[in-house]
């Protein structure tokens, strides 16, 4: 059994009055190349254990790694999209450590010669302001194998009798993107961290270099946090001049929400220790999604303990400037600019667009509009019930909708049924409920539930006549030009029609008869 002592934490707002947070984020991205970084083994997720392994993966004697051309191109494109310099010449290095997740006892990585360096990514925050994240480097390396710990109560390492290792993942191309210390964010540090990882995910998705599925581990974030005494506002010269404090590195924070929570937690934990006169131990921390806390991992090795040296089995990577410029030409429209274009195409206000972005529904709406819906309707339906339910489930809207089989085509179909006068708004909501409950396509749900506006104008006209007759005083007001009074009659007509009427049409009829 793992017993975890709960650390003291300081209230976040109080911590912010005393300390200035500094972060550094390391994001590992698995490329979705067909093959591994240094051999032709496939990279499919979820394959039978050890079925995608060869002598190179195992580091068997005589095995010779050869670099995946596509992985290098992807690395360069990522570097360019992050506004980095691209190395004219760089090498791989062996990072030596003795641990069974790599059978060859080293990970092939890059050390002092990364393929990309000195870049930045501008990140839009929820209020529309922009924080520039400075990028230190992006380098190529390979992923490690996956261990399964047997005998421990929770599948974790503590209490395990032995471990079982699957090397399918060992050797999958990985790009590690490292920021410079992120300063000046102040109390917004957790939000900035989340916004950065989110913007990076959007960028990598637009580049089409990775699945960027945090829940499957194809994008993973390590969050370094340190505190220094607060002496002024976050961006004051004096504050920026205060030396950085000791950092901790919280490993494998694997959802956007967790990035924000983990940074916030570490800030509160450091603050309690420092405020009590203690000092921070430089170590890795494990993030626990369920309890929302971190616990101590191992004391961090110094870089020299990894005894890096240039990889003798691989020759240098030296992309020509022509290659780099050709790859620059393949970069997609940056997600930030794309959003501005879509906002203008869709006619959304800044606030509306921000709601859509924060809901993670940009792509869904784009596809829904492409499938024939109006931009207004696409937003209304996606940000309504599906968003509310996804939130309640703690999932993002894309994952949630995919899980239930709700597609942009469905929403466009629903909007089409409203536009064609088959459904009114409240019926459309019922149809959407049905689709969310797995009852089929909107048309199928409407058919099965018998939802259809009464197209029989005779029936509607009869209802209108009946309601006008029953309300002579209201009718008189409308005849006198008080058109707003029609609302009361429309409600009664809809009641007469048991909701199965087009309210707009009812209004037209009432006004036609009384004016």
């Amino acid at each position, binding site marked *: 059994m793992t017993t975890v002592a709960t650390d003291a934490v300081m209230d976040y707002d109080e911590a912010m009055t005393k300390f200035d947070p500094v972060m550094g984020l390391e994001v590992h991205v698995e490329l979705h190349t067909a*093959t591994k970084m240094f051999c*032709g083994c496939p990279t499919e997720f979820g394959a039978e*254990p050890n079925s995608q392994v060869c002598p190179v993966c195992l580091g068997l004697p005589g095995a010779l790694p050869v*670099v*995946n051309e596509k992985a290098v191109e992807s690395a360069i494109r990522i570097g360019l999209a992050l506004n980095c310099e691209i190395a004219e010449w760089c090498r791989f290095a062996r990072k030596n450590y003795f*641990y069974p997740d790599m059978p060859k006892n080293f990970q092939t990585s890059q050390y002092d010669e990364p393929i990309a360096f000195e870049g930045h990514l501008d990140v839009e925050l929820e209020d529309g302001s922009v924080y520039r994240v400075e990028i230190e480097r992006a380098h190529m390396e390979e992923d490690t194998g996956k261990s399964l710990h047997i005998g421990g109560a929770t599948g974790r390492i503590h209490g395990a009798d032995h471990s079982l290792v699957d090397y399918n993942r060992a050797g999958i191309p990985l790009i590690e993107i490292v920021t410079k210390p992120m300063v000046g964010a102040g109390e917004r540090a957790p939000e900035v961290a989340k916004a950065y990882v989110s913007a990076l995910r959007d960028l990598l998705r637009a580049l089409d270099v990775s699945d960027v599925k945090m829940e499957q581990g194809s994008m993973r974030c390590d969050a370094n946090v340190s505190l220094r005494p607060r002496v002024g506002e976050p961006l004051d010269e004096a504050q920026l001049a205060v030396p950085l404090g000791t950092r901790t590195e919280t490993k494998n924070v694997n959802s956007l929400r967790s990035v924000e929570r983990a940074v916030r937690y570490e800030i509160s934990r450091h603050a309690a220790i420092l405020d009590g006169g203690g000092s921070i131990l430089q170590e890795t921390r494990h993030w626990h999604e369920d309890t929302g806390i971190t616990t101590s991992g191992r004391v961090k090795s110094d870089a020299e303990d990894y005894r890096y040296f240039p990889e003798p089995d691989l020759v240098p990577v030296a992309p020509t400037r022509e290659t780099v410029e050709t790859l620059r030409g393949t970069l997609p429209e940056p997600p930030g600019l794309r959003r501005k274009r879509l906002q203008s195409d869709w006619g959304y206000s800044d606030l509306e667009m921000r709601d859509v972005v924060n809901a993670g529904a940009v792509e869904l709406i784009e596809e829904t509009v492409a499938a024939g819906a109006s931009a207004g309707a696409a937003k209304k339906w996606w940000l309504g019930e599906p968003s509310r339910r996804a939130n309640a489930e703690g999932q993002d809207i894309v994952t949630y909708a995919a899980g239930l089989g709700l597609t942009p085509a469905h929403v466009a179909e629903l909007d089409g049924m409203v536009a064609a006068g088959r459904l009114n708004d409240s019926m459309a909501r019922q149809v959407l409920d049905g689709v969310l409950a797995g009852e089929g396509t909107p048309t199928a749900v409407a058919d099965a539930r018998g939802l259809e506006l009464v197209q029989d104008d005779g029936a509607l006209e009869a209802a209108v006549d009946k309601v006008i007759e029953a309300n002579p005083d209201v009718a008189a007001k409308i005849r006198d030009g008080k058109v707003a009074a029609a609302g009361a009659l429309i409600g009664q007509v809809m009641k007469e029609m048991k909701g199965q009427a087009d309210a707009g049409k009812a209004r037209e009829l009432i006004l036609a008869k009384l004016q």
Partner: protein
Amino acid sequence: MSSLSRDDVAHLAGLARIELSDAELDRMVGELGVILESVAKVQQAPTDGVAPMSHPMPLTNVTRPDVVRPSLGAEAVLAGAPEAEQQRFSVPRILDED
């Protein structure tokens, strides 16, 4: 070149997960020291005006296309494993690391 201390050897043994007795530690300090001294002779070579190198071949950009080639198959992969379980390599429990 600074000489190797007993602590250095103990630290390296720890990184390599090798347990050394006191007697072995003492012996290794001497043996590794001799090897280091021998290799250190390379540093006497005149290298002024010589570009650093890490590879004897004047090659760059040796790559392969991103095309799948057959893997070994799990049975062959595990054939060299001292122990296997659930089609995975079985390794001793790993302490205090994750």
